[in-house]
């Protein structure tokens, strides 16, 4: 019985570790600030990083799905949230990069 419990516990742990990581955040974008030459976006309690598209020499677009490459717009020399996305709820998928940053991969509208 003990062995069975241990095996179940191990399998549960492996399952959670390998498949249970939730790399999505749902919520409204509440803050945008510069962060190490990139941009930090706050969604609820989560701090996400929007990487500048390195292929864009003007550094004005970002490494996310095409539809939301204009998620930030320049205003008075600073990037701010595009007003048309204010108060919109998004489902944001991210992945952890080499620095441990939660880097935004895709932004989708959320029905929540």
């Amino acid at each position, binding site marked *: 019985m003990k062995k069975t419990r241990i095996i179940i516990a191990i399998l549960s742990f492996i399952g959670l570790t390998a498949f249970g990581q939730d790399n999505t955040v749902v919520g409204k974008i509440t803050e945008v*600030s*510069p*962060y*190490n*030459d990139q941009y930090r976006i706050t969604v609820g309690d989560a*701090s996400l990083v929007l*990487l500048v598209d*390195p*292929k864009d020499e003007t550094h004005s677009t970002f490494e996310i799905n095409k539809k939301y490459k204009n998620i930030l717009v320049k205003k008075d020399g600073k990037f701010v949230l595009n007003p048309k996305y204010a108060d919109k709820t998004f489902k944001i998928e991210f*992945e*952890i*990069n*080499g*620095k*441990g*940053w939660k*880097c935004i991969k895709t932004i989708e509208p959320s029905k929540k």
Partner: protein
Amino acid sequence: MKKQLLVITAISFFSFCSTAQTILGVDVSSYQGTPTWTSVRPTRLFAWAKATEGTTIADADFVYNETKGTAAKVVMGAYHFAHPETNTATAEANYFVSIAGSYIKAGNLLPALDLEDPPSGTALTSYFSQSALVSWVQTWMTAVQNATGVKPILYTTGSIANYLGASLTSYPLWTADPDGSPTVTPSKTYLGSWPTWTFKQYSFTGTVSGISGQVDMDVFNGDTAAFNSLIGPTVPPVCKTFYTTVPYSTSFETQWVYDSCAEATQRLPDKFWKSSIGGTTPDYDDYWHRDDYTGGDWSSPTNGAYSPTSSNGSYSARFHNDPPPAGSTGALDLYINLSTAGTKTISFDYIHNEASPAPFKFDVVLSTDGGKTFTDTLMRISAQVSTWTTESVTTTATSSTGVIRFIVTDKGTNDVGVDNLSVTSTPTGIDEITTNSDMVVYPNPTDGTILNGLFMADPAFSTMEVHIYDMMGRDVLTQQVEIERGRFSMALANAHLVAGTYMFVGLSGSERFMKTVVVK
């Protein structure tokens, strides 16, 4: 260790001297888990591993990365993630060196300061003035270079590099320019005032065989000769012996510093100390450390720990010997100039809570020839001392190259603690020192309210500085007295002298008068 260094250097040399190539590397931390470095090596020739962050976070995989990376012939380095918004530069430098010091040496990458915006809170360029941020970085760089003998490199972003100005450009720059290309030269906007760059972090999201998930990718700016020159022999640390003076005291509170002159991983309370191991089967676990040490020297550091951890403050000096090679020894040596006249009292608190300590001995021994020989055993403790107990011993040695050694031979069960150490001087042999003894003080004994003096003949001076020392050598009262017709009087009441023996020292020009005074 020297052999290992030569081998690493030789491997590095042979690795990079054959053909011109783009020299690529990575930088890793515990976010990358435990890479298979033998799989990394074919495409990545160098790697920085995160060692520390702030003053409390030691990367869990640092030692693994340094050890396995080096074994796989990757040229390794150590970096520190700075939190200037939280800590002083000196505290962070000391912490970094205490963890990474033994991996900073010829044949490895330069130690790196990772200066970037903190994970939460304000950007550094908004938090600090330019001069304050420059000062913080300069202090860290200087402290690390002084401790290791190796000039560090600065890793930073373009915006911070621009903010720093030109003051730090003597340090090589590792620029964060994640343009995805190892061959494109960083634009000027990433270099600030630096005329050139040494490394470029060209991706935050790379993938490399042997490393799971994403990893930072780096490239060196130069050819193999330049790389070999960079990692090759550096200016060795000055292995000078520093002698402190009497009085000296420590409670071992500050983070112990890495001994850059030693091959092992010793850490020391300050520059006046050295440590060594000996006996029948000396091993790294025989080194003394501050009691909270958790590095590689000590296995199972919680085993044998004493309680409380100190008798004064929070920390103590601790000898931990686990597992116990019987007969091995660990020595902690204080280099001290004892030429001050008088008897020197060595006082410290001690603990070794072990009911059956044999075979065990704790000796305080003295060298008067700079540590070449230790001929004078001042004290030996071989029995149980279950609570912190003050021990003291005296010496009249006057060597300017004295070494006080605390040496333990342990069977390796419960640890030994020393704390609250002081070395003080009590002037004795007054007649030898005093050239003019034509003075008396009275009443002696005194009731502690007043002390008078009388010169046998009128002195040529009209004022005298008087110091009253207790038997620990502490100056408990200093007073300027007026001398009229060969007499003076001084009030003692405000000093609240407790009953005991004191030294009266009167100074005027080159004249010195010393008397023993008893307060009843």
